[in-house]
């Protein structure tokens, strides 16, 4: 084969904004040379919701529900930064108990976020199982959050000066139980994933970033720590009360995707350590600094008068941001989440700029994928852990125990299912056409079984070469869709009807081409 036959045309592929498996909307225009990636251009903006512009027209309390929707995997961090900014602007002290509660919630959120990162990441690589296991643990975290804050995901729990409500009675014990259970869970993940040779093949040496480059590109969070830079804002900035606990910064040296995975797994273990220490040492006391709630109601008595009240929406008296600017930051699970806040002497900020960790971490993607194969794009993208917003994660993923009971390793499961279908109780819809409903499946099954009777077997079960009308066989097996239609119609349920229609359409769509092919051959053979 001569090489001149292959053209050096690069192919441009659009990995479109929609992705399966929870990646959110990111459009990548990838230039490929065979399997190798030459260039990649991310196109953003499909989920631009105008959060910064909206913030200029909302008070902090009004803005808190928006904030949890930035990074919904770890909603507590976004709330914490929204509240930390004004607190630092206004020099507001947070009581000790509130600080401990915040740290516990933040670390639980960090665990939840890393868990939900592992799931889709492994699913992209090809392992579907961890995707379900993480939801098992995340459900426990959701339960804890729901008991304390009232919501599973979009908590709206933090307030300026503390938290919105105190922890319910018995929450601390439940949380300790969760910590003990979760340590066994991490061991399970390690057994499944970390030494798995397929996983290592896919992940080792992919997407290497050196330390210098990581700093140049402005990475933060686990991406930075996996490249050998020990930079963790919890240790650097000494915010909340992380100094009171004994924990280490997790970091790795290689800078490839495996290193980032290891950093995140060990961060989860460290978070459990922090939570356990916080739970042991949580003090009593108030959970919110109520000083900020006293307002001066005498401002502008003329404009707040009865005659002027209908003119425009006036927010209720609330915390006023002093006329200063500030950059507050914290260590979110994705990286460094920061807010640049310019206050005007009013309830609304003048400028609220969000420094999103995922946005900044995404910049390095075109460089990382330069010499990789196409399949590695998902590995690298997964490890960048960028959160866009898809529809809300359906937490109704069922906790079904797998079918491993019928026979050893579940091999008799199909037989068991079939037998169950034959012997189970017949349920007839009260308002449907019961005759059609019960006869329908019978017709489908009988016609298919009948069609086997036409197949001629001679001695020793060898197919005999007889002139059986093949159209007879096609005709008998084609009666089956009628049965599907009958039972669908007789069920008095529009979804079942649609399902029956669909199944019948599918069966017929096989038979028409089949018949036409056989017809042409038989006509040729007859002559």
């Amino acid at each position, binding site marked *: 084969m001569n090489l001149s036959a292959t053209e050096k045309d690069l192919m441009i592929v659009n990995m479109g904004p929609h992705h399966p498996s929870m990646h959110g909307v990111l459009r990548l225009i990838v230039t490929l040379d065979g399997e190798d990636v030459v260039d990649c251009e991310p196109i*953003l*903006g499909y989920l*631009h919701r*105008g959060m*910064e*512009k909206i913030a200029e*027209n909302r008070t902090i309390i009004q803005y808190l529900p928006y904030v949890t929707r930035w990074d919904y995997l770890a909603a507590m961090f976004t709330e914490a930064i929204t509240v930390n900014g004004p607190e630092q602007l206004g020099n507001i002290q947070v009581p000790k108990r509130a600080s401990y509660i915040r740290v516990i919630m933040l670390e639980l959120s960090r665990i939840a976020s890393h868990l939900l990162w592992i799931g889709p990441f492994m699913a992209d690589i090809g392992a579907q199982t961890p995707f379900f296991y993480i939801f098992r643990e995340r459900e426990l975290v959701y339960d804890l959050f729901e008991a304390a804050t009232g919501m599973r995901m979009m908590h709206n729990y933090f307030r300026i000066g503390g938290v919105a409500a105190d922890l319910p009675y018995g929450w601390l014990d439940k949380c300790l139980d969760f910590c003990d259970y979760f340590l066994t869970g991490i061991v399970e993940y390690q057994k499944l994933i970390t030494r798995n040779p397929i996983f290592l093949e896919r992940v080792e040496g992919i997407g290497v970033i050196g330390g210098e480059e990581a*700093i*140049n*590109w*402005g*990475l933060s969070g686990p991406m930075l720590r996996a490249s050998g*830079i*020990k*930079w963790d804002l919890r240790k*650097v*900035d*000494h915010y909340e009360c992380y100094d009171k606990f004994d924990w280490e910064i997790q970091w790795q040296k290689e800078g490839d995707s495996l290193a980032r995975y290891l950093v995140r797994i060990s961060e989860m273990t460290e978070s459990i350590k922090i939570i356990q220490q916080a739970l042991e040492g949580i003090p009593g006391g108030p959970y919110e600094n109520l000083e900020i709630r006293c307002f001066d109601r005498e401002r502008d008595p003329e404009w707040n008068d009865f005659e002027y009240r209908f003119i*425009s*929406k006036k927010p209720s008296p609330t915390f006023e941001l002093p006329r200063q600017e500030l*950059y507050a*930051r914290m260590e979110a699970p994705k990286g*460094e989440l*920061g807010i*640049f806040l*310019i206050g005007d002497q009013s309830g609304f900020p*003048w*400028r609220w*700029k969000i*420094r999103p960790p995922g*946005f*900044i971490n*995404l*910049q*390095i993607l075109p460089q990382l994928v330069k010499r990789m194969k196409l399949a590695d794009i998902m590995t690298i993208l997964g490890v960048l852990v960028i959160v866009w917003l898809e529809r809300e994660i359906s937490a109704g993923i069922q906790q079904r125990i797998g079918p491993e009971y019928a026979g050893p390793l579940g091999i008799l499961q199909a037989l068991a299912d079939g037998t169950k279908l034959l012997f189970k109780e017949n349920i007839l819809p009260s308002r449907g056409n019961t005759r059609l409903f019960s006869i329908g499946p019978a017709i489908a099954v009988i016609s298919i079984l009948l069609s086997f009777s036409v197949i001629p077997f001679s001695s020793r079960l060898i197919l005999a070469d007889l002139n059986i009308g093949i159209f007879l066989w096609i005709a008998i097996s084609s009666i089956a869709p009628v049965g599907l239609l009958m039972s669908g119609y007789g069920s008095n349920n529009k979804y079942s009807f649609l399902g029956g229609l669909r199944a019948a359409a599918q069966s017929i769509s096989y038979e028409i081409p089949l018949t036409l092919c056989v017809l042409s051959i038989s006509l040729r053979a007859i002559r």
Partner: protein
Amino acid sequence: MVTVTGRWIKNIQMFLYFLKIKFIYILKFNTAYDVAPDGLLVSVYHLTRIEYGVDQPEEVCIKVFAPRSNPRIPSVFWVWKSSDFQERESYDMLGISYENHPRLKRILMPESWIGWPLRKDYIAPNFYEIQDAH
């Protein structure tokens, strides 16, 4: 905080490069805002020094004021690559165009959008609710 206005804007690139080399600063983020509905546009660079074992790392905040009618600031992409998306965002939202940026396109809004959304005098098209004038 360092403020840069007027004809010193061209030197911003050299200054930041000098900071990076001599003092190992990294760009934490770069944003922009406008001072008043008809005032200057400001581009803010927030730099931090990565050091280990320090209580509070040193930080520098540099603000570049540009006139509203022709806001052009040299890009610092060649100093720190992390300003790639951030400068595009400032361009998209406020209209500050950065010279020598390799691909200065709109990043969040669609390419065909007219107007600079985060400016204070921006009027959202087809938006007929009551907007409080600032």
